[in-house]
């Protein structure tokens, strides 16, 4: 099973579908500890991404990710726009001009993505942000690649770990982003960005496993 540009496009389209599907849920989470727009923000961004993909056919995985990056940066309108945008952009740069991604390259991309989010937002693990989904995702991805997993298997391991990481943000107190304005009142609510990160990874993993239709 290969992970070429077409597969990456399919994975991004699946992510867009997930953003649309979970829009209300993500916004509801953001209403508890933010400004109640995370679902709308991501749905708006990924709708724009799909429109771009419909109009062009990027030839390499990196070109797909770069298109996603610039589109999200321009259209999301909230903190998650530059954060996810930087993530996709760093991933694109890290994987270079490879025409296909193996498990190791997925790890390379995911690591760069997480590092990009940290560079942009300065959040540390435990700050109750998307970093708390992405950091365990990167670790699980590396472990899966070490034991010979292909791109889809690595993404799937990452998605599972991200889901656990997102779940584990509930008892944390937010120290970055809008939720940090709430201080202790942010405790007891799951972070919207960590949740969306896990949902996007899950959708991309499933699409990659499906072979890139």
């Amino acid at each position, binding site marked *: 099973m290969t992970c070429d540009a077409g597969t990456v496009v399919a994975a991004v389209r699946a992510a867009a579908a997930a953003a649309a599907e979970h829009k209300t849920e993500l916004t509801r989470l953001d209403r508890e500890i*933010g*400004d*109640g*727009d995370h679902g709308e923000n991501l749905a708006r961004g990924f709708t724009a991404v799909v429109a771009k993909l419909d109009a062009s056919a990027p030839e390499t995985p990196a070109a797909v990710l770069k298109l996603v990056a610039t589109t999200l940066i321009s259209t999301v309108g909230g903190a998650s726009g530059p954060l996810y945008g930087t993530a996709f952009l760093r991933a694109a740069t890290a994987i270079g001009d490879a025409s296909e991604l193996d498990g190791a390259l997925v790890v390379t991309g995911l690591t760069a993505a997480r590092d990009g989010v940290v560079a*942009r*937002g*300065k*959040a540390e693990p435990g700050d109750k942000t998307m970093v708390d989904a992405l950091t365990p995702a990167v670790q699980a991805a590396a472990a899966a690649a070490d034991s010979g997993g292909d791109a889809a298997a690595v993404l799937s391991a990452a998605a599972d770990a991200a889901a656990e990481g997102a779940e584990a943000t509930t008892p944390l107190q937010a120290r*970055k982003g*809008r939720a940090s*304005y*709430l201080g202790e*009142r942010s405790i007891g609510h799951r972070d919207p960005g960590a949740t969306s990160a896990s949902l996007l990874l899950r959708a991309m993993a499933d699409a990659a496993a499906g072979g890139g239709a």
Partner: protein
Amino acid sequence: MSVGIVLVSHSAQLAAGVLEVAQQMAPGVRIVAAGGMEDGGIGTSFDTITAAVQQADDGDGDGVVLLYDLGSGYLTTETAVEFLEPELGERVTIVDTPFVEGAVSAALTASFGADRKAVVSAALEARTANGPGGVRSVDEM
């Protein structure tokens, strides 16, 4: 129900914009914009401020916190507060704090049902835009 918030500004747009941003994070709070002069020009209006305080007061005794955008707005604000019915005037506090940042903090704190003192305290603690970056001293340039 909760402490009300009045945003006194020299500009109607400025007050309305801060209201928009603060209300998004604290949908249930009574935030009232008192910006600009009655003819829409730049300046502060005694009558607009007076009406805004009356509107922001929930009648339950929680009171109202007023923020103003520039020093000269304080003079009109204080005068308006002095002219209120004493019974209302005594549950009103004017705070000297950054306008946007104080408004967001005050609104959020009011949304938790905090009392006026806690809302004032939150407004006073808001000091900068508070991003993960932006220079905080010229040495960082």
